[in-house]
């Protein structure tokens, strides 16, 4: 278990990078605490797999340093870094039994058989695969195979960090939740630093204590799942997290007041940035209500999600979604939207530009 520090990390897949665009990873400075459960969340191409491979040592970064517990490991091989990695599809040794699969990393390090046996059985029990120990790995189902992959990563007790690269990709949807909870359980028992890379927000938000959201090679925000949901620092985070995502609406600002078209919009607090080129209001559909007065909008679509419905409206050219419980309007109805003030945020050039108003008691 180790604390991981990324210092001034940049990576490009080109031999002679010049422009910012040539870099798959823009400059990253990050600290991961020992024993934490982290998620790296972002869409395809955001650089999360690149970052993962740099941490594990499968990729050497173009610039920057990586430190485990303060010691530099940038030039060490994966083997030397003592990490474990679980891949998108199960990577197991088909011809070996489950027992031998789990024992393999320990045998390669010369651990004695008695200790190996103890450790293998311990991990097998944790993963609930004890009765599969003598079966040839090739004959298992994908979710069991993936468990074995994870087991091989955890069987060494001196592992610095365990990394998961979208491990649930090939798992049947109805088994995903089982493995997800198993992973959380494992983290609580083993207390190893774990980094979980995914593009699925449910996986990230349920597994991690802290989520690192990435887009286009940049770290956009780090925070707990609650923080990310409630106060997205970037429009990308707002839009990406939550289902449906946050409404991002073009607006204008004049003299400290925001306007959506002609309508004045009350923001959560004072505007903290001076200027910019793009002004947007961010408000989550959960905080948009339909009432008798408010911004005029026309209903375009109503989707019933079960517990509630999502009503998509348009205000002029803008699309605004609202979460409605109970009765829903019909298509082409004219409704009035209200934004909950303390959840209405202003974003300038994509970044959060309002501060929460202090509550005066």
């Amino acid at each position, binding site marked *: 278990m180790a604390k991981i520090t990324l210092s001034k990390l940049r990576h490009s897949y080109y031999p002679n990078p010049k422009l910012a665009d040539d870099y798959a990873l823009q400059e990253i400075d990050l600290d991961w605490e020992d024993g934490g459960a982290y998620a790296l969340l972002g869409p395809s191409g955001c650089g999360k797999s690149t970052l993962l491979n740099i941490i594990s040592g499968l990729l050497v970064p173009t610039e920057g340093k990586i430190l485990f517990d303060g010691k530099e490991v940038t030039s060490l091989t994966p083997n030397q870094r003592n990490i474990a990695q679980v891949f998108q599809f199960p990577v197991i040794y*088909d011809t070996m039994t489950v027992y031998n699969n789990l024992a393999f990393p320990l045998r*390669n390090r010369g651990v004695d058989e008695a200790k190996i046996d103890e450790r293998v059985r311990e991990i097998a029990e944790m993963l609930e695969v004890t009765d599969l120990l003598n079966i040839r790995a090739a004959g298992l189902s994908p979710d069991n195979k993936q468990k074995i992959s994870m087991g091989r990563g955890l069987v060494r007790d001196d592992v610095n960090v365990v990394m998961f690269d979208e491990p649930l990709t090939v798992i049947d949807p109805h088994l995903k939740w089982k493995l997800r909870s198993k992973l959380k359980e494992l983290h609580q028992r083993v207390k190893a630093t774990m980094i979980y890379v995914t593009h699925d927000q449910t996986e990230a938000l349920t597994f991690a204590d802290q989520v690192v959201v990435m887009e286009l090679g940049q770290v956009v925000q780090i925070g707990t799942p609650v923080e990310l949901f409630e106060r997205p620092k970037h429009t990308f985070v707002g839009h990406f997290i939550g289902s449906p995502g946050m409404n991002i609406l073009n607006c204008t600002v004049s003299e400290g007041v925001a306007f959506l078209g002609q309508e004045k919009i009350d923001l959560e607090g004072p505007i903290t940035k001076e200027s910019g080129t793009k002004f947007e209001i961010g408000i989550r559909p959960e905080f948009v209500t339909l009432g008798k007065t408010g911004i005029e909008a026309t209903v375009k679509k109503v989707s019933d999600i079960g517990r509630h419905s999502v009503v998509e409206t348009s205000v002029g050219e803008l699309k605004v979604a609202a979460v409605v419980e109970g009765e829903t309007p019909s298509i082409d109805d004219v409704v009035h939207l209200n934004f909950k003030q303390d959840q209405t945020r202003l974003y300038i050039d994509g970044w959060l530009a309002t501060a929460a108003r202090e509550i005066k008691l």
Partner: protein
Amino acid sequence: MKTENQKAWFFVLPVLLLVAFNALLPIMTVVNYSMQETFGNNLFFWEGLGWFEKILRSERFHAALGRQFLFTGLILIIEIPLGIAIALSMPRKGFWVPVCLILMALPMLIPWNVVGAMWNIFTLPDIGLLGYFVNHVLGINYDMTQDPFAAWVTIITMDVWHWTSLVVLLSYAGLVSIPDAYYQAAKIDGASNWSVFRFIQIPKMKNVLTIAILLRFMDSFNIYTEPFVLTGGGPGNSTTLLSIDLVKIALGQFDLGPAAAMSLIYFAITLLVSWLFYTLMTKDDLN
């Protein structure tokens, strides 16, 4: 998901007719001949299984069969490991890869008689490149028209030259399809190169290796043209493999009965050993 449809037989009919014409009719003829005796003039007398007995007991057949198994055995022992080794040593990506593959494939596209003729010219003792080199530069006596051992070395080398690329190409295709993640996991697990070979590469190449071994077995067991053009079966009959012997009897001597019986026995052996190889190599998949 396949649907059941008996009308599919219409699709298969042309293939069935062509192959049946080429396979069943001749086989029927062969079976017919194998059980009859003829003294010419289209007069046939029933022999029953007499020819089969004669062939199975004949010294000549045993000798040819022995030579054939020796030849095929040597071929497999050399070509399969060599092919795998070469495939392993090739880079998985890069500009040179297609160039290498094309050059390696070249020997397989040369008409078989040209292969034999090429090696003939190549190994002539005083005027061939290899012959000259071995005899005059290395000082070893090498003349395949006189020395059976030299003849054997030559036909083996010729076949290795001719067909190892098939094993290389198949193995390479298998290797290239192994996802990088396996190699990465092995690095993380601290596996040695030998472990990677034994636990990752060979298991993942099993399908292609099965094809390679089966093809090499069948083709080397049935080989005719190349050794025939190169040595004519000699010196004497030291390199007279099964096919060469069969053609001598069938087209040379027109001994229909014995030739036919020998043909069936030959075909049967090929099928049997192929089936054995196939079952042995795929038995794990049946679990």
